[in-house]
């Protein structure tokens, strides 16, 4: 392998039901920054069926060009047809960097590909930078449940591949009137790669706001005492126009749904306001919320680690404070509306 043959930054765009997942825009934003440091281009790779209409948005968020594999075999995600398409793209276009969302798709596709093209893969990176001397990608990620950070290099193999969790990088403000050429790529044998049968697709009905989209999160932990008290969190979240999230302990106890979980094994969030109620702040939890703009913590235990990251901490009983806080905030909001 000759390293010099590999050029450019490639983002594997994720779409489901022909809708692009937000993490793809975040990765394009990061990819653009890396491409600038390398004085090269960022290419978005779009795999799917009848997805041409999605290409324009990729340019708006910073892609210099789009490679599109549009094939009926790629309509619904399956490991092998997607791996075949991406392996062919890597072989033909030889990117030096390939980034994937660390999603249920990306964390299946990327390792399969890394074994196929014989290169390294770094999971769930929180920081990506270019070493100005070697032009290598420096990939930093948490390990030991977020207790330590490790910087990882893939110096002797190309492409350098990494996954990044949704919500970790930030998308750029959409560009107006950009030129973003789209190249259709044909890959043979994709239909033959369909080696499993999808019997059923069941979408989860979820009328609640995604915790990664919410501007305000009211989050509950073990200190809430039981599922019956989560309604207090709902009421405060409603008053603030936000939604409820939770610690892992509450999910494990069955007080909250898995999709509410913030942290290392849940979701990474960065809302404008994060109110942690009865959450002690295990390092795994902090890893998922410490980038929030303003953090308020309410906990009975003055030694709780959550106070180390909180902007405003109250040592007290969340069950007593929450109803009063909700009323007070409603009153302030009503007053401001009237003013």
């Amino acid at each position, binding site marked *: 392998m000759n390293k010099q043959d590999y050029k450019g930054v490639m983002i594997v765009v994720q779409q489901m039901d022909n809708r692009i997942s937000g993490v793809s825009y975040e990765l394009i934003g990061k990819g653009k920054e890396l491409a600038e440091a390398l004085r090269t281009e960022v290419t978005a790779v779009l795999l799917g069926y009848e997805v041409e209409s999605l290409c324009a948005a990729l340019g708006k968020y910073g892609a210099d060009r789009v490679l599109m594999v549009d094939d009926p075999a790629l309509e619904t995600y399956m490991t092998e047809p997607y791996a075949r398409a991406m392996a062919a793209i890597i072989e033909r276009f030889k990117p030096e960097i390939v980034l994937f969302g660390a999603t*249920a798709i990306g964390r299946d596709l990327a390792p399969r590909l890394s074994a196929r093209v014989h290169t390294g893969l770094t999971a769930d990176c929180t920081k990506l930078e270019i070493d100005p001397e070697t032009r290598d990608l420096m990939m930093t990620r948490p390990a030991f449940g977020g207790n330590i950070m490790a910087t990882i290099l893939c110096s002797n193999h190309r492409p350098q591949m990494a996954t990044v969790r949704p919500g970790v990088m930030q998308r750029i403000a959409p560009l107006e009137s950009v030129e973003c050429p789209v190249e259709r790529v044909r890959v043979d044998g994709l239909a033959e790669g369909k080696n499993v049968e999808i019997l059923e697709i069941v979408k989860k009905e979820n009328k609640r706001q995604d915790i990664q989209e919410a501007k305000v999160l009211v989050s509950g932990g073990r200190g809430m005492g039981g599922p019956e008290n989560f309604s207090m969190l709902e009421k405060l979240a409603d008053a603030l126009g936000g939604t409820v999230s939770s610690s892992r302990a509450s999910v494990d106890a069955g007080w909250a749904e898995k999709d509410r979980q913030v942290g290392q094994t849940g979701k990474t969030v960065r809302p404008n306001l994060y109110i942690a109620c009865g959450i002690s702040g295990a390092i795994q939890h902090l890893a998922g919320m410490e980038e929030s703009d303003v953090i308020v913590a309410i906990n009975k235990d003055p030694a709780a680690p959550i106070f*180390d990251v909180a902007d405003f901490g109250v040592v007290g009983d969340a069950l007593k404070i929450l109803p009063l806080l909700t009323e007070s905030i409603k009153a302030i909001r009503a007053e401001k509306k009237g003013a």
Partner: protein
Amino acid sequence: MKIIVCVKQVPDTNEVRLDPVTGTLMREGVPSIVNPDDKAGLEAALRLKDQYGAHVTVLSMGPPQADLALRETLAMGADEAVLLTDKAFSGADTWATSSTLASALSDMEYDLIITGRQAIDGDTAQVGPQIAEHLGLVNISYAEDLRVEDDCVVVKRQFEDRYHIIKAKMPCLITALSEMCEPRYMTPGGIFDAYRSREIKTLVRSDLKIDDDNIGLKGSPTRVVKSFTKAVKGKGTVVALDAHDAVDWITDRLQEKFIL
């Protein structure tokens, strides 16, 4: 039916603490456990054993003390346990780990390989799909439920906002989520046997037909060049007030920040 479950012995990361003075990881006294996703995968295999009389072999790569994790799996009901252990395997990233495990697996008989989705010390979720690729097997990741129909598996495959029910012909590999099933406890008789009379088969470097370029540190495309503890965000203000005063204090601070 022959099932091989791959497990990893991991430090219980919930128990890992940082030295407040040096900021380094304090590993002493941190208990080692069988990785939770792997343990759920083992339970799924044992249920197939209960149901269909499947033969369950557990495979692990790790230091000699991983023997303890394997004895736990025997005490839960696994039929055989194999430990891949050799200095030559150490320092492996996910690529080299998966190629080493795949090499051992290629000499074993199986209809189904089950790995955990990810280990709690690394959280990469890579080794399962990479093993499948090295062996040329179909893989289904993020399995929430598993059943067997004739020569096929039917898997409930989890995504963020949906699940797929996927059918695949064996042999194949699935990666199990902890949610899949609650692992059973070891039985007292099982514990007694596992420590007194059962043997764990050990495989070393020379037992594998694999190139030196594909194992250990040398076979690892990635390398950790630096590890450090995260800089802690500057601590804010913490107050202890009665509920009414606390509410006023919070709303005042939020108004100062223009959030209210």
